[in-house]
């Protein structure tokens, strides 16, 4: 039963144009699809191809291409195989349609991606603050967010200069490169 | 006739038998009365009426004053100051009762006598009737005071008639004085019916759920009265007279079967009023739904009239020793054990029903039924300490229940609800009411410093020395159930989280506070020095022919285990002193914090979240005994009511449908049977 369904899926996807399919193994399939066709494909996978479980939605920030890549990992219990559907959306408006009506767990994944990347999912039930309840800075997982600069601005550091180091230096020894110079990007944020 | 007015005043003071230590007080009264007696009106009318009043038979004076109270309440009930008048009148009744002096002196027969068809109704007061009359008038006095001030104002604003309330209370008090003083079966039955109707009136005042409960009570009361009537008919058919003396002789001459039927008839009638087990379903709703002050009076004394009946007939006339001879065939139980077991079950079942109530009034009403079981159990044990414990518990529990119900209704007066799940944290807003409830629950649970402990201790001690293990365990399980449910009562109302809407609640009004604080002081005093109360009980035992309890100022002196409350309470207070010394002396300074500054696993508590644990308070226990509550008695009552409906439907069918022929035939057959 399992490979029959798999072959049926492969032949079907092969017929569709505009999507790029790559089967990495008997139980792994990677599909690239245009962003507006993704909900239809998900309905097909869920409705006909027994992929009833949406394991996760992950997001990749291609800052140079100015795009976000959304990956929908769908799992089928019947044929024990995983389909990951990849799509690209432009980074700037960062808005996409929600698939909550197809897979209900999508609500939480979309809420998480909204908090971490700032992608707005139209129709998602609740996009309020999720894990970072105290966070009022920019979405932290974006590549243009400089975590260390933010840390330097909001947190203080221990000026770690213990007594044993002082008398060592008194005798001419000490550390070759002092700690605060060792870090490569100890830059403070430019006061814009 | 120109006796100088002061002599009349002297007679009045002599009548009050103030002990010699009180002559200073007598002096003050003499001067204050002196300037009254100089006025003109006094010389013509006042003086003769005063002389007539003093010369009267004391019991007649008591009845007259009680009837006067009733009359005045009927006439002046609507007045603003009717409450104050009622308080004064009940005070006068109490003074009249004291002047009868039948507790330590000889029984006094009232001269008023009604003869109907050569059967005469007459009344006489002895130690037992004095004891119950004292509790009744005391309860009425305290209730009237509680209802005198702002409680009555709120009651009037709610559209209820104050006059009806005062009349009902006065009628109740008068009825009970008549019942308690009855000297023959007819006056007993008359008093019994009057008390039943009066308490129905007091319950049905407010209408609504109270009226339903009152109607249910009425059904029980009428069936009880019919049982009583059956018993009286049985005695009359054997003894030929209604006088108590003849009744005692008749009962002594009865065979066992006759005594069994008498026991079932009279015992059943009185058990309905006392709320013993099979007949207890009416009492909780009836007493809880009565108007505030009314519930206080009913809870304190009304159910004990059944106990009075049982004492007079079953304990007094039939006698516990006679009960022990009445064996129940095929079981090794005698009728005494049967009644004792009914009393023990009456302790347990209502107390564990009270545990589940989430309305404070119902919880206390269910306890009213439970504590009645203790009194009967003490009497059924029959030895000196046991019966004294039962009688003393009647007094101790009356003041405890009155104080508790007053505190609960003070909370209802301020917060508007008695639902335990809607209250909480009121100790900071109503500290005096908390104190009263605390004294009350310590006494209800029977813990040392308070009065309840003394009488419960006596019942336990007699159960041990008389060798009744299972009854002893049943009584203790009842007490533990009481401790659990009273803690739930005080925790859900006064402790825990204060709700936002109760922040502005004020202390109970003054007119309600004074009787409450007076009663709680009495509870502590009756526990600290049980001597006086024990002396009354000893007199009653002597008059009933029971072995008299060896009492002393502090408690009981007995080689097999005595009790000296003065030492116990003294050492307890000393212990609290040491505890305070250790706590405040050695401990450093502490700072009072707000209730939201609490450990909740790192969670920030906010005022709008209601985190008080009050619903399903003993969840663990209820997992085990929850399924045991199957409402067996409610099922029994419903099935009884259903069979009654069936029978009445059949009978109605017989009359309503015109079947002349059938009726004629039946009449003919009856005629023939009667002729031959």
């Amino acid at each position, binding site marked *: 039963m399992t490979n029959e369904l798999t072959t049926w899926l492969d032949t079907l996807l092969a017929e569709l144009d505009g999507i790029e399919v790559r089967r990495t193994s008997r139980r792994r399939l990677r599909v690239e699809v245009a962003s507006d066709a993704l909900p239809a494909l998900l309905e097909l996978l869920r409705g006909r191809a027994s992929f009833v479980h949406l394991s996760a939605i992950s997001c990749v920030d291609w800052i140079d291409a100015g795009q976000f890549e959304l990956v929908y990992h769908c799992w089928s219990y019947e044929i024990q195989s995983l389909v990951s559907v990849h799509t690209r959306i432009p980074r700037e408006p960062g808005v996409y349609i929600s698939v909550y009506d197809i897979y209900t767990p999508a609500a939480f994944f979309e809420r998480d991606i909204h908090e971490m990347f700032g992608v707005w999912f139209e129709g998602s039930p609740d996009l309020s603050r999720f894990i970072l309840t105290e966070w009022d800075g920019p979405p*932290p997982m974006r590549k243009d967010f400089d975590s260390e600069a933010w840390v330097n601005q909001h*947190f203080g550091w221990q000026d770690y200069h213990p007594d044993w180091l002082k008398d060592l230096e008194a005798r001419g020894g000490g550390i070759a490169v002092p700690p605060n110079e060792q870090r490569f990007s100890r830059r403070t944020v430019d006061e814009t | 006739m120109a006796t100088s007015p002061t002599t009349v005043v002297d007679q009045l003071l002599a009548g009050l038998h103030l002990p010699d230590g009180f002559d200073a007080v007598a002096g003050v009264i003499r001067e204050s009365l002196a300037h009254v007696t100089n006025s003109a009106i006094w010389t013509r009318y006042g003086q003769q009426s005063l002389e007539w009043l003093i010369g009267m038979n004391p019991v007649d004076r008591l009845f007259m004053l009680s009837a006067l109270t009733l009359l005045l309440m009927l006439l002046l009930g609507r007045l603003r100051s009717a409450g104050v008048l009622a308080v004064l009148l009940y005070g006068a009744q109490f003074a009249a009762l004291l002047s009868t002096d039948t507790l330590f002196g000889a029984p006094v027969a009232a001269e008023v006598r009604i003869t109907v068809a050569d059967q005469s109704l007459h009344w006489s007061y002895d130690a037992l009737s004095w004891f119950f009359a004292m509790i009744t008038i005391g309860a009425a006095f305290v209730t009237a005071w509680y209802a005198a001030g702002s409680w009555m104002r709120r009651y009037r604003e709610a559209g209820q008639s104050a006059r009806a309330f005062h009349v009902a209370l006065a009628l109740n008090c008068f009825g009970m004085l008549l019942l308690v003083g009855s000297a023959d079966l007819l006056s007993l039955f008359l008093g019994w019916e009057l008390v039943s109707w009066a308490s129905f009136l007091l319950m049905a005042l407010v209408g609504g759920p109270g009226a339903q409960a009152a109607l249910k009570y009425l059904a029980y009361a009428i069936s009880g009265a019919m049982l009583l009537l059956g018993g009286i008919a049985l005695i009359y058919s054997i003894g030929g007279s209604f006088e108590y003396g003849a009744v005692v002789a008749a009962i002594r001459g009865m065979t066992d079967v006759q005594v069994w039927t008498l026991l079932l008839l009279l015992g059943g009638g009185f058990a309905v009023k006392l709320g013993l087990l099979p007949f207890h379903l009416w009492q909780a709703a009836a007493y809880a739904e009565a108007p505030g002050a009314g519930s206080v009076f009913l809870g304190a004394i009304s159910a004990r009239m059944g106990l009075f009946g049982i004492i007079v007939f079953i304990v007094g006339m039939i006698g516990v020793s006679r009960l022990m001879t009445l064996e129940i065939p095929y079981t090794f139980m005698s009728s005494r054990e049967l009644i004792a077991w009914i009393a023990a079950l009456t302790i347990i079942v209502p107390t564990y029903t009270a545990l589940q109530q989430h309305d404070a009034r119902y919880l206390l009403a269910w306890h009213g039924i439970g504590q009645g079981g203790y009194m009967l159990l003490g009497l059924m044990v029959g030895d000196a300490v046991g019966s004294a414990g039962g009688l003393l518990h009647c007094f101790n529990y009356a003041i405890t229940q009155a104080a508790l119900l007053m505190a609960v209704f003070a909370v209802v007066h301020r917060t508007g609800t008695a639902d335990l799940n809607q209250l909480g944290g009121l*100790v900071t807003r109503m500290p005096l009411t908390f104190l009263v409830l605390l004294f009350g629950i310590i006494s209800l649970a029977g813990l040392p410093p308070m009065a309840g402990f003394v009488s419960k201790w006596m019942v336990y001690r007699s159960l041990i020395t008389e060798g009744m293990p299972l009854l002893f365990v049943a009584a203790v399980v009842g007490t533990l159930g009481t401790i659990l449910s009273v803690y739930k009562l005080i925790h859900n109302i006064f402790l825990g989280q204060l709700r936002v809407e109760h922040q502005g609640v004020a202390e109970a*009004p003054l*007119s309600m506070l004074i009787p409450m604080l007076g009663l709680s002081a009495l509870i502590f005093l009756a526990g600290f020095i049980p001597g006086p109360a024990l002396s009354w009980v000893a007199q009653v035992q002597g008059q009933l022919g029971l072995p008299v309890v060896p009492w002393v100022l502090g408690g009981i002196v007995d080689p097999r285990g005595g009790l000296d409350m003065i030492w116990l309470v003294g050492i307890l207070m000393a212990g609290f002193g040491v505890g305070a010394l250790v706590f405040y002396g050695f401990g450093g300074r502490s700072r009072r914090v707000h209730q939201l*500054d609490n*450990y909740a696993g*790192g969670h920030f508590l906010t005022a709008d979240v209601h985190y008080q644990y009050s619903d399903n308070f003993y969840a663990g226990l209820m997992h085990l005994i929850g399924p045991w509550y199957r409402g067996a008695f409610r099922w029994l009552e419903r099935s009884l009511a259903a069979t009654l409906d069936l029978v009445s439907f059949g009978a109605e069918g017989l009359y309503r449908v015109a079947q002349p022929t059938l009726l004629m035939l039946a009449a003919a057959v009856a005629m023939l049977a009667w002729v031959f």
Partner: protein
Amino acid sequence: MTHIDQVPTPGAPLPVEIGVKAGAARTNPFARVFDELVRFAQSRSLFMLHYCTGCGAVELPPAMTSRFDMERLGIQPMVSPRQADILLITGYVSVKTLKRVILTYEQMNSPKYVIGICSCTVNGGMYWQSYATAKKLNDYMPVDIYIAGCMPRPEAVIEGLRGLIENIRTGRADAWKDYYRRYDYYLGNQQRLFGADWQTSTDVIAEARHYDLFGPATLGAHTALLEQHQRPLEALEMRIEIPELMRRRSRSDQDGTAQ
């Protein structure tokens, strides 16, 4: 309302006197002997509340059980902050958890001691770059002992505890007073992280005044910010207020004034 940024951030190093020198010994000998006994008792009996914020907590059960047995030193685990003396912060302190840690610290009864276990509490540890974790624990509450190590072994934990016991016995472990004496500095750091409307249900300023631990630096700009929007929670004092009595007395006052 001043925004968080206008408030001067305490960039400058801490003022010199970080903690008042060991409690000035009292003059008469009996008091000194009594203080000595109390300090000895305090050092021999410590109730430990380990708030397992991060990975370091897994080192504490072995320190308590049969191999290392902390009870030899008189240290018992306790559950509620009211009962505890030591607050063990084990592992990285995320910003969300720091709120609860501060609340727990303020709910503890003094003299209380904080031990930061694991390098994450010392200087950020391996999460030094993360936006979500607090780097220096003693910015937010006075810390008595730091035990470095990316999960120090039980021996190191017990060594740290013995150091604390030594400090208590000699009277040098009174960093907890610093929280009251320089509450403004700590509150400033907390507000810097949690925003201006940060507050806990404990009223530290009233507590400082009650136990006369009021230092010069207790009040400052940050506490002024706090006062703007937090009405401190007063304890619900028990009051006997009978309106009927009040009304009668007020009526009698009016009569009094009317004449």
